[in-house]
Every structure is written in structure tokens, then in C-alpha cells.
């Protein structure tokens, strides 16, 4: 009897404990998501009543040239940025993982941009890359690395993309670094000592011991980085505005344009759902990889 009582009581306590999270997720994730699905089947400008169009918004998306241009560009951006953040963040983490005063300072310096808002950092880099008044052109000219000022943003898609990647690397590389440092520091010191006694070089230790033991963190950071890159918006909205000729318009930028300035909420919702599906595929693939790594 008392066992049953205890079970019922603990069940009630469990329900009460998870209730805030369930309510929060329900109200702020599930309900908006269901509303978005409903909106995606309508034409709705907010200032006129919604009109049922069935699957037309989805059909339109698949024949929309700009949608595919944006999606291809977003995947390209993700493919370029992710290795830079992963390899760069990991190398910095290897350099600063030990707890010495100088390394602590270095960790703080590299991590500081992470706490700056993405909008503010994008604006900062927009001005740093400015053709006439920008510091980057000035430094490159003074060092003799360029003979005339470079137009970094808005004229050449590859150059614009690289400029944005530079700004984002500065902004978020510290996030991966700090997680990698935590993972590296959690490795048992005796394993490292034993490998040193066995004569393993630094890079052998990294490749055969540190990397395998931190693989779970690497996969987690990769997942976060890939999702962040697939949903890139602020940096391109501010630094390139999608130019030149829409070649740097990311998928989310295109969703934003349709949903708000164009007031095509239904089409924007359909595009969002397609994008969410793509992100889901990446997430599932990486979770499977992660499980395999653990197994």
C-alpha cells in the first residue's frame, strides 16, 4: 500500500516538475509550429484575410529559382565555415587547454566575441571591410599586400562570402574552443602521461588519444555549428544584403523577405518548413554519427 502511495506521489511530483517545461515548450514551440503549418497552406498578407491554397506554396517553392539559389549558397557557406570553426577551434583549444595564467587570458580573449550580439559584430565588420574607410583595406595597403582598395562586400559573391566567414569565425570560434577545452581537460592525465612515457609525440597524442576521447564533443559542436550556419541571417542581412544579384541571400534571408517585407506569410511559412526539414535531416544524421562514435 505504501509502495503504491509512494509511486503515485512520486508520479505526481514528476508531472509537476516537468509541467513548466512542457507548458513552455508547448506554448512557445509546439503551438507556433502548428500555426506555421496552418499558415503554410494559406495566402495571408496580415492586412487581408487568409485564403486557403492547399499545397500551392510548397509547389511554388520547388519551382522558385531564387529559393534554390539561396539554399545552394547556404549549403556552400555551411560547408566552408564548419571546417574552419571545427579545426580552428580545436587547434586553439589544444594550445590553451592547460591552466596557466597566459593561457587563461588567451581563452578569455578568444571567447569574448561570443558574448557580442551577432548584429553588432556584423555591423562592426561591415565597417571594417568598407572600401574607402575600412581598416582592413588600410592595413593591407600599408603592408603592401594589395595595390588598390578591394571592394569586399556586395560585388563578388565569393569575396563577400569569405568576408562574412572571416567575421563569423572571429565571432564564434571561441564557442567551440571553450567546449573543446572542457573536453580536453576532462581526459585522465594518467593516459597522457602513459603515452608520453611510451614516447608518443604531441601530434600522435592528439590523433590517437585526445581526438578519439573528445569525439563526442566534436560532433556536438559540429551539429551546433551546422545548424547555426544553415540558419544564417543577421550577418548577410547586414553585411551583404544578399548582394551581388542575390548570390549571397541565405535561405532564412529569403524566408524573412517573403514573410515580412513582401507580406507573404503563407509562402514564408512553407519555405520555413522546407528549411526545417533540411535541418532535421542534418540533425538526425549527426545524431546517428554521434551514437556510433559512442558505441
Amino acid at each position: 500500500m505504501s509502495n503504491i502511495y509512494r509511486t503515485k506521489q512520486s508520479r505526481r511530483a514528476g508531472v509537476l516538475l516537468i509541467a513548466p517545461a512542457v507548458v513552455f515548450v508547448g506554448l512557445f514551440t509546439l503551438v507556433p509550429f502548428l500555426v506555421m503549418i496552418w499558415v503554410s497552406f494559406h495566402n495571408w498578407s496580415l492586412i487581408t484575410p487568409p485564403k486557403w491554397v492547399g499545397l500551392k506554396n510548397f509547389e511554388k517553392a520547388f519551382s522558385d529559382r531564387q529559393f534554390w539559389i539561396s539554399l545552394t549558397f547556404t549549403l556552400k557557406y555551411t560547408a566552408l565555415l564548419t571546417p574552419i570553426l571545427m579545426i580552428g577551434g580545436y587547434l586553439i583549444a589544444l594550445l590553451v587547454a592547460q591552466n596557466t595564467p597566459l593561457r587563461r587570458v588567451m581563452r578569455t580573449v578568444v571567447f569574448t566575441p561570443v558574448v557580442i550580439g551577432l548584429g553588432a559584430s556584423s555591423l562592426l565588420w561591415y565597417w571594417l571591410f568598407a572600401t574607402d574607410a575600412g581598416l582592413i583595406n588600410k592595413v593591407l595597403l600599408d603592408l603592401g599586400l594589395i595595390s588598390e582598395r578591394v571592394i569586399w562586400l556586395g560585388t563578388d559573391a565569393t569575396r563577400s562570402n569569405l568576408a562574412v566567414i572571416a567575421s563569423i569565425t572571429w565571432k564564434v570560434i571561441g564557442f567551440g574552443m571553450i567546449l573543446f577545452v572542457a573536453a580536453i581537460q576532462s581526459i585522465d592525465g594518467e593516459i597522457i602521461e602513459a603515452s608520453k612515457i611510451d614516447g608518443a609525440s604531441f601530434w600522435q597524442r592528439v590523433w590517437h588519444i585526445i581526438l578519439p576521447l573528445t569525439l563526442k564533443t566534436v560532433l556536438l559542436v559540429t551539429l551546433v555549428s551546422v545548424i547555426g550556419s544553415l540558419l544564417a541571417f543577421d550577418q548577410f542581412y547586414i553585411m551583404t544584403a544578399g548582394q551581388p544579384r542575390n548570390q549571397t541571400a541565405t535561405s532564412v534571408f529569403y524566408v524573412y523577405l517573403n514573410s515580412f517585407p513582401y507580406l507573404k506569410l503563407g509562402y514564408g511559412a512553407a519555405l520555413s518548413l522546407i528549411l526545417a526539414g533540411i535541418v532535421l535531416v542534418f540533425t538526425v544524421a549527426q545524431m546517428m554519427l554521434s551514437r556510433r562514435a559512442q558505441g
Partner: protein
Amino acid sequence: MRTKTLGAVALLLTVALGGGASAQDLQMWERSGGNAPMVDALVAAWNEKNPDRKIVLTYIPHTEMVPKLAQAIASGEVPDLMGLDLIYGPQFTSAGQLEDITDYFKDDPTIATASPGHIKVATWEDRLYGVPLYADVSALFWNKDLFVKAGLDPEKPPTNLTELHDYAAKITGIEEGVYGYYLAGNCAGCNIFTFGPLIWASGGTIEPKDASDMALQGDAVPKVLEWARMMHKEGLINPANQAENGETFHLQFGSGKVGMMGTGNFNITLARDQNPGMNFGITLLPGLETGQVASFAGGDIVTVPKGSKRVEDAVDFMKFILSDEVQVEVYAKLLNMTTRGDMVDNKYYAEEPLIQDVAKAIQIGVTPYTLKFFELINSPQGPWLQMLQRVYYSDEPISEIIDSTRADMAAIVEE
């Protein structure tokens, strides 16, 4: 001690409540930008005369104005007065989201001389939904100092696009970083404001009126586009302009590095502040032939959204800003355009020849009328900017560019 604490709390509450809005106040939204000093002055003048029904003004970032208004309308939380970029007038009037103010103005003589471009976009099916809040017009500014250095007559601006090209060629390179002309390479709005008039003046059209109409009509269109490509190919326009997205557009003429530039009346005081010693003149933007001129008549209309409980007070504000006194003592005094054509002869303009030159533009100003202005013209992703970038920076045949732009615009209008 407790009394002191309570006193401090009471004082804080008094200050907080005293500084905030009261129930009698009218709420007004307006987009942010260079218009702020003008609108601030109008509201201040109203508040001084109407202390019992003051206007509380809230600025919305101009890029967020349309979605913000749409959200407000959808949620029913609308302001009493709403400043609206005039090009979006048709979108909101046709959706039935603005109060019909026709009857309030049927006996008001000021409406007859109000800026025709503003009134056109504020009218839907012969009913009036707004009045001009302020006017911006585009014109050709020329730097007389650079004209002198280039051996040109500083009192003779170009009267057609051929002359404009020839003058630009003489000015370009006379000093380091000096270019003859200016066109923004990455700013749709800047181009409809300053490049659009070159097409209109020459007899061409830009956006389609409706689904049955074709975009970019007239023999002049390919000629003007060829002219623009030539200006770029010959290096008469700074290549760095390719990145100009509108952020620094208003600062270019005042830099003293540009011989001629299409810009707006707002640039008069701005250029003087930036470069007090610079001599410059203003004329109308020319077309292919001498005598052809045009301008973009922009600015904002002030409207009353459906759901406002203060329609009569809002209409009083509209009548107030159209009154003779406000036209002269607020608009003209600040060297802004008067929004009534019959008010341009005033004491403030008489002392300022440049504003008189700009005032001529409002008489011929063109305001596009379309329900899809943002998608067609203003969007950085839209066909207008895409067309211009292909013209300015590629070697694609102009005829192909025009054909594909027509198709893109038609697809948007047909939706």
C-alpha cells in the same frame, strides 16, 4: 527613514507617470530616417497648440515599418496616426485598412493644392485615405568648384544625358578620388529615386501598372541603360559605389569628390554641414534630349488606421499640417519642401535660391502607383536592382536584361 523611502518612491512614480503618455494623448507611428527633424517639428508645433491632446511619436526602423504596421493591424493594436512611406499607400488603402477621410476634407481648400503625387497614392476608388506628411524630391546636384577646375562653366549644368556624360568625363580624375557622376550599385531605393527619373524624363516606363501592362516600355529604356553602362565602363563612376547599399548615399555629394549626382532636397543642408565651403547648384534630372526632365516625388503620407478611436483628432492634425501657417513656419522655415504647391512662394524660400530650384521638381515629380512596390522596386532581391546591377557591372546584352526583367516583374504582378 520610512517616510523618506515612501517619498522617494512617490517621486519616482510621479516622474515616471509624468514623463509617459496620458489617456488623452494620440499615438503616432512614423518611420525612422532623415525625415525625423521635420516630423519632430510638426509634432512639437501641434503639441504646443494642443496641450490637451498631445501626440506621442514613435519611430519605427524604416525597413520594419510595413511588417510592423501589418502586425499591428492584424492584432488590432493600431496607433491613432500612422506615417507611411507614400509608395505603400495603395497596398494599405486597397486592403481597406485605413479610415476614409474624404468627407472631412470635402470643404477644405488646402487639399486642392496638396502634393498631387501624395494624394494620388492616398486615394483608392475616389476616396481619400491620407494627406502628405512631408515630401522628398530628387534633382541633379552639381559641384560648381569641380566644374571650374574641369574648365566647365559652373553656371551651366547638363541639360541632357550626353552633356552629363561629357561633363563627367572632364571632371573624373581632375583630383585624386574625384569622379564625374554617382550611381549607387547596391541600393534599389536610391536608384528609383535618382536613376528612375532619367528613364521617365526620356519617355520610358519602369514598373507595370497591372497584370495587363508591360514593364520597361519605350525606346528610351535601352538607350538610358546603355548610357548607364557606358558611364561605368568609362570609369566615370567610382567602382567602389558598387557596394553602396544606401548607408552612405546621403553623404556622397557633400564629400566634394563627386561632380554631379542625383539626390534629394535633404542633401542641401546636409552637404552644407559636411562641406561648408563647397559651391553647388541644383537642377532637374535630365533625359536623353534637352528639355526632357523628371523627378521622383517621394516622402510620407499620414493616415488613420482602421480601429483608431481618435479619428477626428487625427484629422485635425492632418488639417493642421496643411494649414498656411504650418506650411510656412514649420516646413519652409526648416527649408523642407512645403507639401502644398501654392505655398512655395514664401519668405524663407525667397532667401534660399537652392530650395526654389528643388521646389520646381515637385511640380513634375513622378510617384509610382503599384500594390507591389517593394517586391518590384525596393527589395534588394527585386528585379529592379537586379536589372541595374546587370546593366552596370556585366556585359550581358541590354535587350536580354530588359526581357528577363519584364518577365520577372510580370510574374510578381500576376501573383
